[in-house]
């Protein structure tokens, strides 16, 4: 049960991050290697805003929740305009350029924020005990063991992620903006011939992708800590999720995030974390080699 909640927290944050990566790849056909750095940026901005706001952690948290995605998104939009647009979204060149961006963001944070990990206080953090059923001498009984508890904040993370995912789903499938995004994804040239400003759509999507990673980071930063190297793991895990879920498929991304997030905890019970990671990376490589459309995607003709 405890592992379940931990897994759900992981899955929640991961699905938001991976969704950003997936959206950018789906609509723009751009593999954003710097995606993890936008995640890191979100966490660092959260720390910075929380420190700036000062004493009230709740206020700081809310401010961070607003500021981080906006700032990360703006940086992404500027990058799109300054770099990606100018290299015509050429797949190879964008990969090289976003590798460059990765180091620029990471090292800039190192220079300003410093090499230390810094915590952000959660807005609320009540401990909640979880009921447990066990077969005791007196038969099945329900009790609240001391060691088995979680915090209200972790539950909040899960709920917030579900809310955000629903919002994204709603925007994508029910609004004009979503229609524009989907049309651009399917055929950008024809979209242009029907008055869709594809350049602006690309900038927007790149911004939204970064903002999603930043929001995910703000949510997780009270549990983990902000650090300039923290972008690597979410990047790798997002890659794994997007590949397994099928490149550019939203539903697949969420399902895959759930699987990866949940299994992360469970696998490490049986194997050492390193071995688990080795197996996971090899598995993903094999998925790409033998089922490039992902486990849940369908092949596009």
């Amino acid at each position: 049960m405890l592992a379940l909640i931990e897994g759900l927290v992981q899955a929640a944050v991961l699905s938001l991050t991976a969704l950003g990566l997936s959206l950018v790849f789906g609509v723009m056909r751009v593999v954003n290697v710097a995606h993890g750095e936008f995640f890191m940026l979100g966490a660092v901005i959260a720390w910075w805003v929380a420190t700036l706001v000062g004493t009230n952690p709740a206020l700081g948290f809310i401010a961070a929740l607003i500021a981080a995605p906006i700032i990360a998104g703006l940086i992404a939009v500027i990058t799109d305009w300054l770099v990606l647009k100018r290299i015509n979204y050429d797949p190879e060149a964008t990969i090289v350029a976003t590798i460059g961006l990765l180091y620029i963001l990471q090292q800039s944070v190192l220079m300003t924020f410093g090499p230390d990990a810094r915590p952000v206080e959660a807005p609320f953090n009540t401990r909640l005990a979880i009921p447990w059923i066990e077969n005791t001498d007196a038969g099945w009984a329900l009790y609240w063991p001391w060691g088995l508890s979680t915090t209200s904040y972790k539950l909040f993370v899960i709920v917030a992620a579900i809310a955000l995912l629903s919002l994204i789903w709603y925007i994508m499938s029910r609004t004009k903006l979503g229609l524009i995004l989907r049309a651009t994804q399917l055929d950008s040239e024809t979209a242009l011939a029907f008055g869709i400003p594809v350049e602006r759509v690309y900038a927007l999507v790149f911004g939204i992708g970064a903002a999603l990673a930043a929001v995910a980071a703000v949510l997780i930063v009270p549990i983990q800590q902000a650090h300039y190297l923290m972008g690597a793991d979410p990047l790798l895990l997002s890659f794994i999720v997007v590949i397994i879920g099928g490149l550019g498929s939203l539903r697949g991304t969420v399902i895959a995030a759930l699987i990866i997030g949940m299994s992360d905890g469970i696998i490490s019970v049986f194997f050492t974390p390193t071995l688990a990671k080795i197996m996971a990376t090899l598995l993903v490589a094999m998925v790409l080699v033998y089922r490039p459309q992902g486990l849940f995607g369908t092949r596009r003709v």
Partner: protein
Amino acid sequence: MLKLSGINAGYGKNQVLFELDLSVDKGEVLCVMGRNGAGKTTAMKTIMGLIQPNSGQVEFEKRKISKLAPHTIPKLGIGYIPQGRRLFSELTVAENIEIGLMTRKKGKATRDKVLDMFPRLGERLKQRADTLSGGEQQQLATARALCLEPSVLLLDEPTEGLQPSMTALIRETVLTLKGEGVGIILVEQREDAVRAVADRVAFIENGRNAATHTIEELTEDPSPFRKHVGI
């Protein structure tokens, strides 16, 4: 009302169009004919701003439009039915139509009018575009472009791979629009389809104007068809 003059254009270093001139008036049907690779589709894309000409002018209602941002061109009222239809395949019929309506902010009245022209589409609003038959797809592509209430319509090989009954429907649509005063540029390879609707025919060879004839001239002497496209 739409006029191309002295267009040189192509893809990167590959020039496809050389000093090409084309023009169409209100209520006129200009057919563009030529062999594969002559540059017909490139000419249409140049009008739509999808390809920037290296030199030359595209004028629409006396206004130079070749330097405009490409997404603003359809908003002027130029409708485009691309070769191969290019529907948004994973979107539904309704959503494809919605995109057409968005272009010039047209509302329900336009939608109803367009669906009246193609009642089959009305029955399939919730279906994904790629599940439609070839003829229905062409209807949808036409409907999507008509949602702009265009004053000029570009049709790029609409009858390609269609059954005779469908080509008749397209012919009818073209004639109806012509009656409403829409200027039409029709790229077409089939002589019979051209004869039925054209006012003038522009023959293109290797990206250059080869000849332009009125339909009367061609009725009298059909040899240009053979010379520029036929057997």
